[in-house]
């Protein structure tokens, strides 16, 4: 009987009916034993295809989460493993990729915007509106003050050098493109990424 890996998992998880166990080659005692085993937890999980966030080998991964994506259900990621269908990693992961679950649920994941005023000794939580309003105001103040429309020779240069940005290196192409649009429309030139380190 030909089964893909995923069908196998589904199949073995579906209540472990006697007939199906027979097909899998269990004898009668095996059936009883298997019936007593806790159903494989991933059979109840939602599987999502993704790519390891670390190096650019870009191993395929399968993320398993509890929650069926219903409107009122909040998904919780419970397991991550290598994608056996992926032509490069073929299901394997390295010591970093194998521990991806721990980075998703790291206790140092940030959960709210925080702000530290000049001379402050600690962060305090603030609203998104406070943070983004204040950032935009600071950027505009600086841009209006330091924007260079023409250089000494009178050539139109339209650049802004006094506020800079470092772009991410594990963010998506789509994030990168939107970031490029925003930064360049502002005239920003102190603009770099992590390609070098």
């Amino acid at each position, binding site marked *: 009987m030909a089964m893909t890996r995923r069908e196998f998992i589904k199949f073995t998880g579906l209540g472990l009916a006697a007939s199906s166990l027979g097909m899998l080659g269990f004898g009668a005692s095996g059936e009883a034993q298997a019936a007593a085993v806790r159903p494989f937890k991933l059979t109840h999980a939602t599987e*999502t*295809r*993704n790519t*390891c966030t*670390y*190096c650019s*080998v*870009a191993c395929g991964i399968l993320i398993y989460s509890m*929650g069926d994506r219903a409107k009122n259900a909040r*998904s919780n*990621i419970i397991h991550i493993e290598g994608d056996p269908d992926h032509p*490069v990693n073929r299901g394997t992961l*390295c010591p970093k990729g194998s521990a991806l679950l721990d*980075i998703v649920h*790291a*206790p*140092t994941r*940030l959960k*709210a915007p925080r*702000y530290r005023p000049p001379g*402050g*000794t600690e962060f305090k939580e603030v609203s*998104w509106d406070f943070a*983004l*309003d204040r*950032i*935009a105001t600071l*950027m505009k103040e*600086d841009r209006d003050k330091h*924007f260079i*429309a023409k*250089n000494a020779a009178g*050539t139109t240069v*339209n650049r802004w*050098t006094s*506020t*800079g940005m*470092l772009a*991410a*290196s*594990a*963010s*998506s*192409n*789509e*994030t*990168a493109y*939107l970031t*490029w649009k*925003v*930064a*360049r*429309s502002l*005239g920003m030139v*102190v*603009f770099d*990424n*992590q390609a*070098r*380190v």
Partner: protein
Amino acid sequence: MTNTWQDIKNANVVVVMGGNAAEAHPCGFKWVIEAKIENGAKLIVVDPRFTRTASVADYYAPIRPGTDIAFLNGLIRYLLEKDAIQHEYVRAYTNAGLIVKDGFAFADGLFSGYNEETHSYDKSSWDYELDKDGFAKSDDTWQDPRCVINLLKQHVSRYTPEMVSRISGTPQDKFLHICDLIAGTAAPDKAMTSLFALGWTQHSVGSQNIRTMAMVQLLLGNIGVAGGGMNALRGHSNIQGLTDIGLLSNLMPGYLNLPTDKEPSFDDYMKTKLYKPLRPGQTSYWQNYRKFVVSLQKAIYGDAATKDNNWAYDWLPKLDVPLYDIIKAFEMMNNDQMTGYICQGFNPLQAFPDRGKIRRGLSKLKFLVTMDPLDTETSRFWQDFGPQNPAKSTEIQTEVFQLPTTCFAEENGSLVNSARWLQWHWKAADGPGEAQSDIWIMSGIFHRLREMYRKEGGAFPDPILNVTWKYTDPISPDPEELAKEMNGRALADLTDATTGAVTKAGTLLDGFAQLHDDGTTASGCWIFAGSFTEKGNQMARRDATDPREQGIAPNWAWAWPANRRILYNRASADPEGKPWNPAKPVISWNGTRWVGIDVPDYGPTVKPSDGVGPFIMNAEGMGRLFARDMMADGPFPEHYEPLESPVENVLHPKVSANPVARVFADDRSAFGSPKNFPYVATTYRLTEHFHYWTKHALINAILQPEEFVEIGEVLAKEKGIEQGGWVKVSSKRGEVVCKAYVTKRIKPLTVDGKPTHVIGVPIHWGFTGQARKGYGANTLTPSVGDANTQTPEFKAFLVNVEKTSAPVAA
């Protein structure tokens, strides 16, 4: 990478130099093992340390950090002297026979045109002799002393095996054995692959390190073939993508250059980008540059980019310096020239050299914004963490915003891997708490700014008010819509000149060949054209079928450009179109067109008899053994010592280090001398950690919990350092107190007759996360970069090491 990860299995020789794939790219490295087991490949590793990659090598040789060019120029000398080159390939596909201008010269460490005051070259002599039609003169017999191959022979003649060993510390017999193994791949049906990473890039001569091996690969006929190529393994999951999309100070999407002050008008800009063929009948694909730029401006500015305003050329910022790279940014901060800085998923307090300077720079800002899933050191630079981050919070006036973002598992989108594959990924869950995507945050900042400019006016609001933002949800644009915008679409009905086929206005484009320079097409990143077409999201394709199991998998995801998996694959066949290696053909000529398992990197119906070269992006159609004016530091590679080196350059003591390295005065004064800092240090990564992220992950923090340095047994004995004992490692810029791992993996080298010790400094620890606090390797490293890219010289610098006692528990 020119090739794919799986394609490594086709190699006969694998050279890992400037990288440590077994530890840094483990799941890609399996293809090296596959090559060894299934293809009988020999693995050669050249590295200062006996790494885990070295542990499975067929042949290992040690090398002093920062001397790779000496080694590789010696290899080129060997290949030319033994005539171990792929003659037909070199003759037909490289510029070996082109004649170089009379004014070009090299003497005492300097190429012609050097300006001592500006530390730069006038490169006008670094070019070919042209005939009356503007084509490069050529001597196919290679008799002319001014043809490239003869100038190259002369240039590398100084790199004898004795000299290579004297500079690099690699024993002569080991060097020669490696030369011999590599020379075997000059046979037309044999291939060598070069795998490298930061071990080559993070030097003041980083770009030239890579270029030297590229020249070796051209001489051996190993570019474009299965199992060959130059394969940059690359670091972060989407650093290829961010580079492709031009998130660098001098770039626009698709490797287009941002204009400079010297190009006041669009016509001036285009004049430097005509790319007229330098040999008769050549493709010189960059001749389409104008189409790519106009289509980009149409994507960014839509209807506001018109012929009349030169496609909104003035709205692009112009550069007055070659780069506003990160080293320069922190120099500007320290000189009070910057107000604000935004760090999106980037932790420069850990990642950039001379940590003290980074901390001082951030302290001078008016505001700092960090966007990250994790609590980074950078976002807390102002907080006192003891000796690992001494800070007086009350004296630091920087406003700091720490914005929580979602991570990879919590969003849709595509990433580009090192083999140029764009792979789509899907969201599995929401982020924690109030975390938001970078797209939502950037949109939020942008909308607020645009609204203020709309209401209040301000400095040059035009580009801000006109940038296109036609997304279904403008607050949080859908990644699919952004991907389609990068792919590009027709803005008017387009009729194909040859087939007459009509592409309707609004239709997504199939590829960059459809782009126009008259405003009838828009494409946000021309090299991604074809990734999201009317047939759907090509990046989401999941058919792993692999014809002949040759490692191409053409229907898995999508590769730029044009879904091509092996770059320069025309060079996998001989001039008549027959594969050099009949057992592993990539493409071949069937009498009417090019066919094979990959998309031809060539006109699909261009006849072999037309003599069009395989390197279609180059104006001469050939691979370059002589780089013309493309490199800042010379058309041929030359050995220069690192800025901090234990020895003088024995080839030319007066020009010891890279003469065009950009060094700021304060950074120069922070360089140490071998008198006080006698040991060579090199930074590296552990297989259990990824940069400064995984110390936040419990399992990885347990696996490698604390900062250490690696010291060879001989030096440890000399200094009385015990296994696991405490040491103080210092450079002129700072010191690290940590444990010593005394090892057999690093042995002293004999350099210019003197014993030279190398110390390994892993980079992973800081003061946030779950691992123990560490000072960070960048406390020690010098602030100087590669002369072409400004990649910091993390791989070769000077330190001292002393035994010390355990720190008193806080």
